[in-house]
């Protein structure tokens, strides 16, 4: 800031905090259907501590520069999955991406995730994504009487699907998948991950049904093992491996 030198004599503490800051350009893909049919890039140059996250930068822009900037966020700690966006060409959670990890010397691009309808700025219509999620029946299905106590499971049985329980439904994987970009009928990695979570759960009894659903023409066989989903997942889930395990279960079930 231009006032930094003026403040120096009286506010030493404020100055040392300010000196951490660097100047970063955020190049944000803006779209507002109420103004224009075209999306465009807008640059915001802000002073920010590089140890802050991209989400903090977006806050700073929204709160201090341009209140019309629109994005989703809720928990701000990588748990709710609302702020997946394409940052420097890669899908990440804005709340888990530190500015210093992004080469702040160059403009940092921020845009909405791909393959879903952009409604405004960084907000997309998640409905097709959640429709695919609903279509794999992501809930426990059992038969018989409900036990009086909990449904017991060995530690090894729990471990079998541990990786896929970590999904926060952020859509970073599905919206990084080139098959999904071109054909929204494909279930997408996130739906398969959440089907995997129940297919390999020893307490669940509808694994067969879910396998049957994913055996269809828009199911797991459309996966090209591009590994974009594994790279994108902010929870570190081995998404492509989960998909491969579903494929394997389908083949061993058949032969």
């Amino acid at each position, binding site marked *: 800031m231009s006032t930094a030198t003026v403040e120096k004599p009286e506010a030493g503490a404020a100055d040392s905090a300010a000196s951490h800051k660097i100047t970063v350009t955020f190049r944000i893909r803006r779209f507002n*259907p*109420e*103004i*224009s*049919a*075209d999306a*465009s*890039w*807008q*640059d*915001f*140059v802000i002073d920010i501590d590089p140890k802050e996250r991209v989400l903090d930068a977006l806050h700073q822009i929204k709160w201090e*520069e*341009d209140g019309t900037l629109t994005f989703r966020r809720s928990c701000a700690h990588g748990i709710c999955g609302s702020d997946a966006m394409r940052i420097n060409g890669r899908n990440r959670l804005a709340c888990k991406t530190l500015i210093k990890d992004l080469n702040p010397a160059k403009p940092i691009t921020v845009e909405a995730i791909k*393959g*879903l*309808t*952009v*409604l405004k700025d960084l907000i997309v*219509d998640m*409905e*097709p994504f959640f*429709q*695919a999620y609903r*279509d794999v029946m992501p809930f426990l299905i059992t038969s018989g009487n409900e036990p009086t106590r909990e449904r017991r499971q060995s530690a090894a049985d729990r471990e079998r699907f541990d990786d896929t329980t970590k999904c926060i439904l952020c859509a970073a994987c599905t919206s990084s998948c*080139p*098959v999904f*970009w*071109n*054909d*929204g*009928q494909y*279930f997408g990695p996130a739906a398969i991950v959440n089907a995997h979570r129940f297919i390999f759960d020893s307490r669940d009894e509808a694994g067969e049904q879910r396998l*049957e*659903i994913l*055996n*269809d*023409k*828009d*199911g797991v*066989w*459309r996966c090209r093992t591009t590994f974009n989903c594994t790279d994108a997942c902010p929870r570190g889930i081995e998404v492509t491996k989960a998909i491969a395990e579903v*494929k394997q279960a*389908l*083949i061993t079930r*058949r032969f």
Partner: protein
Amino acid sequence: MTTENTTTPASGTTAVEGERYSPENPAPVIEPPRARTTRTPRSTRTNFELYGWLFMRLSGILLVFLVIGHLLIQLVLDGGVSKVSFAFVAGRWASPFWMAWDLIMLWLAMLHGANGMRTIINDYAQRDNTRFWLKVLLYTATTFTILLGTLVIFTFDPNIR
């Protein structure tokens, strides 16, 4: 401080008044092709895609040997490509072993390639009509080539001249 990219569209100056958008009259959003909805068709309960996927892997392995063997024999060993003539082909097809080799290679390569093309069409053709006609073209070409090749292998006459 904020620096705005002045990204006025090229037609900015000549914009028709009717193209102005407002909260009451928002611009259309761009929907991705073939989005999933509640009306997306349910499972067809066939194993076609499973067998297709397996076929690609298994035929791929076989084709590696068949094609590399074929290329070696035709182009590298024994004087290379200059030795290939009508008499050379006639000599090879006198043996049922080479007939079988070429027949299997023809069928596997054509089906492998056609299935790969089918996948590509599924991935890239956005409109249902485009999909349909591209696939019609693909299946016609594939059937024609397979039938013609098979016919030649079985009805080959070395004394044709």
